[in-house]
């Protein structure tokens, strides 16, 4: 067996373990929390009272305007100075959640705004109130349009979790760094780590395709027409 293959096989178990215990949970949790936060932020910006609109804009402005790595450093290394001490994983989770929240709020806002006014009026005309019209008429239609851009956010997030290594979360990329520190084989190990990220992203892309097909079928459109 060639040396490089042996090395890859030997390091596969610790890398997959780090992936499973830290990268995957960090991704799933921060996407779930972030999407919730993004949804609420979008509603605040579209329909909230003026102070809430301002707050939502401020939040999106800060998060989109500063580097994710710097945000993680502020949360993990900075906040202890004011007495807020967080473990590495929760600190990273907060950072990624805030990020997904800001970016997805723009997506949610755009897709909700893209539903024609006539659909709201049709809902009101059959007696629905605002919340019913939103839930029954607008969101199901907006969801379909939102799948591709939200999938982008999700896939970016998987890769961005590698930044958590810098705030001491022992996730996939940090596990790779540790192996490199003892094996002195950066090219092979980092390529292996990259391949694992690639595999994760590919799984998500495939899931996106299936979801798009399903949502397209559920409105009588051929999947091709929905593309």
């Amino acid at each position, binding site marked *: 067996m060639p040396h490089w293959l042996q090395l890859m096989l030997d390091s596969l178990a610790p890398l997959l373990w780090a992936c499973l215990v830290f990268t995957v949970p960090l991704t799933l949790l921060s996407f779930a929390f972030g999407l919730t936060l993004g949804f609420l932020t979008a509603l605040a910006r579209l329909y909230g009272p003026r102070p809430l609109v301002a707050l939502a804009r401020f939040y999106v402005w800060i998060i989109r305007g500063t580097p994710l790595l710097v945000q993680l450093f502020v949360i993990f290394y900075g906040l202890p100075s004011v007495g807020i001490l967080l473990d590495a994983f929760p600190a990273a989770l907060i950072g990624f959640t805030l990020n997904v929240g800001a970016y997805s709020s723009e997506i949610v806002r755009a897709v909700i705004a893209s539903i024609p006014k006539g659909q709201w009026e049709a809902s009101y005309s*059959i007696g629905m109130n605002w919340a019913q019209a939103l839930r029954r008429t607008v969101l199901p239609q907006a969801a379909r349009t939102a799948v591709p851009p939200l999938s982008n956010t999700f896939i970016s997030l998987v890769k961005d979790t590698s930044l958590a290594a810098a705030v001491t979360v022992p996730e996939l990329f940090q596990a790779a760094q540790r192996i490199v520190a003892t094996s002195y084989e950066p090219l092979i190990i980092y390529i292996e780590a990259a391949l694992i990220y690639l595999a994760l992203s590919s799984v998500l892309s495939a899931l996106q395709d299936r979801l798009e097909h399903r949502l397209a079928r559920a409105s*009588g459109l051929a999947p091709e027409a929905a593309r």
Partner: protein
Amino acid sequence: MIRLADIVKSFGDLTVLKGVSLAVREGSVTALIGPSGSGKSTLLRCVNLLEIPEAGQLVIGGETVRFTGRPPERETLRRVRRQTGMVFQNFQLFPHRTALGNVMESLIVVLKWPEAKARARALELLDKVGLADKAQAWPAQLSGGQQQRVAIARALASSPRVLLCDEPTSALDPELSLEVVEVLAQLAREGTTMLIATHDLRLAARVAQDAVLLEAGEVVEGGPAAELFTRPRQERTARFIATLGHGVVSDQGAEPG
């Protein structure tokens, strides 16, 4: 009886309705005619409070709403909309629900009927508009005329006191509009109270007992439809009817609303 009194509505600097009064008898059909921008659609939308007038009064069933420039209570909105159904120029079916799902929606969500009961009622209505066989079809799979008939069934689902139709045939080719006219005529024969804003003289003459001509936000003339169309009292009415007669042939769907 549905009664509108002295309705005033403006958008910014533009006063669209300048004190319009109108009554629709229970069980009768009134056609609201008039040139583009005369305020027909706006007046219709004031009846189910999609537009809130600045002044005037709306009486529908036991409900009296006085407009004061403030938005009405939620409860008022709910009660008024429970008594009205609306058919839109561009159908506005819910594209993510089947024909059946569209008709069931108000029964399930608003009236909280059990599924089976709502389904039975919706199928009955689809049958009434001649689309029982299209119950499982998606709006995207239906022709314009079929979509509008589903929209009529949807508007009728919760048994409104009045059916408001905003240019119901204007987005349709003449042949397709005919099937919608047929359905509305049948509803009229059964005693459905309707207020129809329309450009379509064929529709108005066929379906309405009464007609009202609106121009620049004011009522020009109102009365029995047959008389208004054949022996208008006002010069302006005569002129408008003349343009309409021409319009039936060459100008279908010219008005956006």
